[in-house]
C-alpha cells in the first residue's frame, strides 16, 4: 500500500503551498486516476512520492519510508520523459535489466512488438507519440508494484491512446497499482476504478467508479460538480468582451 499522510509541499518564493495536508492511500491492484486543473499539484504530488522534492509529512510504501531499498517497487512515466535520448530501445532494456532485478523482458518485447517500435534507433529519433509509448513501456516493464504516470499520453493520437488503455488492462497483474494523472477524463473513465481529484493542492474528491455507477453519475459530471464548474462562464466572458449576447 502506498500511503501519503499530511503531505505538504511549499516551493520557495511562493505564497501558497502546492500541496496542503494531502492524505491518500493506494492499495494494491487499483487503477487510480488523478485529476485536476493545471497547477493543481498533480505533478508535485508524484514528485514528492519519489522524493524528487522535499516535503513535510510522511509517505510510506508497504509501511516503510521510501528509500533506495524499496524504491524499485515504484516506476514512473512522465510527459517530461525520463529516458536517455541518445540511447536505443535495446540500450534502455539492458540498462533497466542491470538496474531493476524484476525487469520483465517478455513484457518489454511484447509491447515493443505491439507498438511496432524500433529496437535499434536512438530515442531522440522517435516521434513524440513513440517516445510517450516507450516511456510508458519502460514503466510497465520495470517490475514495479506501483506505476505512477504523469500525463503519459500528451501528444498521442486517440487510437493510440485507446490501444494503450486496452493493453494496460490486459497486462496488469492483480498486484500492480497504477496512479495516472491526465486531463483526458472521459477517455480513462472506462478503465480506472477510482478517481482522485485535486484542487489548489488539496484532495477535494475521492470516489470509486462503482460508487459513481451506484449514484448514476458520470465521471466528468462528478469532476465538474466537485470543481463547481460554471457551464455559463464562457458565454458570460464572451458577453463581457464583445458586448453582445452570446447563446
Amino acid at each position, binding site marked *: 500500500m502506498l500511503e501519503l499522510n499530511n503531505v505538504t509541499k511549499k516551493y520557495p518564493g511562493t505564497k501558497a503551498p502546492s500541496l496542503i495536508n494531502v492524505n491518500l492511500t493506494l492499495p494494491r491492484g487499483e487503477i487510480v486516476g488523478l485529476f485536476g486543473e493545471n497547477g493543481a499539484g498533480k505533478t508535485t504530488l508524484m514528485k514528492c512520492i519519489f522524493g*524528487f522534492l522535499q516535503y513535510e509529512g510522511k509517505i510510506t510504501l508497504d509501511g516503510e519510508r521510501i528509500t533506495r531499498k524499496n524504491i524499485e517497487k515504484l516506476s514512473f512515466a512522465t510527459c517530461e520523459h525520463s529516458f536517455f535520448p*541518445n540511447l536505443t530501445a535495446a540500450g534502455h532494456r539492458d540498462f533497466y535489466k542491470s538496474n531493476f532485478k524484476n525487469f520483465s523482458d517478455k513484457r518489454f518485447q511484447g509491447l515493443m512488438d505491439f507498438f511496432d517500435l524500433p529496437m535499434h534507433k536512438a530515442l531522440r529519433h522517435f516521434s513524440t507519440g513513440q517516445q510517450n509509448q516507450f516511456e510508458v513501456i519502460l514503466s510497465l516493464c520495470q517490475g514495479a508494484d506501483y506505476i505512477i504516470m504523469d500525463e503519459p499520453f500528451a501528444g498521442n493520437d486517440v487510437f493510440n491512446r485507446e490501444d494503450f488503455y486496452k493493453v494496460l488492462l490486459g497486462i496488469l497483474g492483480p498486484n500492480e497499482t497504477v496512479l495516472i494523472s491526465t486531463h483526458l477524463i472521459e477517455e480513462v473513465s472506462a478503465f480506472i476504478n477510482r478517481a482522485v481529484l485535486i484542487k489548489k493542492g488539496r484532495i477535494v474528491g475521492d470516489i470509486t467508479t462503482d460508487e459513481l455507477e451506484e449514484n448514476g453519475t458520470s465521471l466528468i459530471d462528478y469532476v465538474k460538480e466537485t470543481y463547481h464548474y460554471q457551464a455559463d462562464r464562457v458565454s458570460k466572458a464572451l458577453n463581457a468582451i464583445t458586448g453582445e449576447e452570446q447563446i
Partner: protein
Amino acid sequence: MNRLVQLYRRFSPPGIAGSTDVVLLAAGIPVAAIFCYCSFSVKYDRALTDLNDNLLLKNNVMPPFRELFKGSMSGFGVLILLILVWIMIRYVFFYRESKSIYLMRRLPKRSELYKRILVIPAVLLGLSAITAIITVLLCRYYYIHLTPANQLPAHIEMIYGGIIHA
C-alpha cells in the same frame, strides 16, 4: 580497444556520444606536463646563462626553484578547470532533451548516478595530479643536479622551498 569502449560506457551517462572528450582531456595531461617542463627549462636555461656570464660576481647564486618554476603549473591548472567543467557537462547531460535524472534518482543503487558522472573525471584528475607531481620532481631534480653545487641557494630553501611554493 573494445574493452576500453565498454569501460567508458559503464562509467559515462548512458547514450553519451563518442569518447572524444575523454581522449582530448587525457591528451591534455602530457601536454600540461610538457608545457610545465618547457616553461621551467626555458627560465632555468636563462638563469644558468646569466649565472655563467657573471661567474666573477660575489654571492652569485641560482634563483630559488620556486621563482623559476612560477607559472609552470598553469597548464595543469587549465586542465583541472576543464575537467571540473566537464563534470558539470556530464551532470547537465541528465537534463538535456529529457529528464533522465528522474530515472537515475530512482535507481536502487544510489552510486550509479555518481559513478557515471564522476569516475572518469576523477581518474583523469588523479592522473593529472600524479603527472604534475612527477613533473615537479623532475624539474627539481634537474635544478639540483645541473646547477653547480656552490651556486645553489641556501640548503633549506633548496630542499623544501621549491616544493612548497611551486
